[in-house]
């Protein structure tokens, strides 16, 4: 019974698409002798197949690609539009209002803090003066223009455009200067971005806690739902799916 529990879990990882080749082979071997697991596994495979068949298109994907390319060549009005920054994000009335407010706040801060004399825009891949502090578990980092996730360690260099991903039961602290840190809690994703020529943090999901020296300058954390400004010396930002 205990063994079957293990194979039922394998079936769930098969549903997830994360089963390893070794476990799949083991599951198939077990299913040959265990009727209950065989039925469960066969039902799972059949369900996936039935859904795929029912939602499939009579038009072969290859033909669809050719037909669309032909249409793009034949119809000159179908062309690539130049990028408008944040086009997808700013779709919709509420987003447009939010964008207006953000722009106003940005302009106000730009004028009052006087960033005019600052150097030209930093390249997006520039190294930033942030170091890695304490790490618990495995935290992954991916540089911009790369598909490879690497394990973050205390000696890692941090660049603009880096994405940090903490998995379950893992966390890390990024040291911004002598007395300021930003802690990324478990199951979170944080991206370093450039905004108004300043390094900014974008919390895609999860939770992070900022501890800042006092008094500190303006400090923001952006999220998919808006930007949060630090008013105190320590604050936590959480982004959930709901």
């Amino acid at each position, binding site marked *: 019974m205990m063994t079957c529990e293990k194979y039922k879990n394998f079936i*769930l990882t098969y*549903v*997830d*698409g*994360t089963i390893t080749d070794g476990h799949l082979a083991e599951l198939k071997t077990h299913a040959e002798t265990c009727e209950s697991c065989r039925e469960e596994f*066969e*039902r799972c495979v*059949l*369900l*996936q197949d*039935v*859904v*795929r*068949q*029912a*939602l*499939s*298109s*009579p*038009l*072969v*994907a*290859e033909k*669809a*690609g*050719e037909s*669309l*390319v032909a*249409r*793009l*060549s034949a119809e000159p009005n*179908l*062309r*690539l*539009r*130049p*990028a*408008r*920054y*944040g*086009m*997808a994000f700013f779709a919709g009335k509420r987003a447009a209002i939010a964008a207006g407010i953000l722009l106003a706040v940005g302009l106000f801060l730009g004028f009052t803090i006087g960033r005019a004399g600052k150097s030209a825009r930093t390249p997006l891949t520039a190294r930033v003066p942030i170091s890695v502090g304490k790490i618990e578990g495995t935290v992954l980092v991916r540089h911009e*223009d790369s*598909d490879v996730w690497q394990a973050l360690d205390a000696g890692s260099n941090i660049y603009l455009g880096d994405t940090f991903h903490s998995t*379950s039961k893992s966390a890390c602290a990024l040291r911004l200067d002598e007395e300021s840190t930003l802690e990324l809690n478990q*199951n979170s*994703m944080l991206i370093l971005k450039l905004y108004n020529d300043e390094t900014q943090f974008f919390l*895609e*999901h*999860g939770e992070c806690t900022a501890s800042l020296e006092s008094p500190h300058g303006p400090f923001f954390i952006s999220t*998919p739902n808006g930007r949060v400004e630090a008013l105190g010396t320590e604050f936590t930002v959480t982004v959930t*799916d709901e």
Partner: protein
Amino acid sequence: MPESPTMTTETDKQLVKSTLLGETSAFGAIVERYWNMVVALALSKVSDAAEAEDIAQESFLKAYAQLAGLRDPSRLAGWLSKITAQQCSNSLRKTVRHRRAFGCRATPIEALDERPAMTANPGLTQNQIHFVRQTVRRLPEKFRTMIVMRFVANLSTVQIAEQLGKRPGTVRVRLHRAYKLLRKDLAPLLEEVES
């Protein structure tokens, strides 16, 4: 199982980059890669297969026009799924207006027959196809996307999470719930197909 999009030689990033440099054939490769997923997403919302293909075509054309605005090309599948959802909503609104104006109704299930259906893989009858699509359409939208991205696009829960900017745990929970609901609702059909 179809090959996973990430396992193919050219990455989505490379294809997006080539398309932006003017290579329309690279966009053809993107369409080829995600055609089944986009049609399936449309079919999980609208009942007519021809309408779903029209939606898929329009979604790809919209994606092409707006490709330069795609912030993270490695999340192309997630971006396409959002465009498709938007196109489906537009199409459904048009259909409702059309039905109000002309008093049309959807084809009743009795009018369908037992002939093999017009799909890429004609193993199921038209009635069975209709039943499966209806069952999938009854799922909450967040579950439908998971089912299509997993079973049709063959992305793993980890890849889906990355594409949609969600936590893998959230995707896993939603997928398992959707799977359980489908297993329960499709049980009679699965028995019929098995026998």
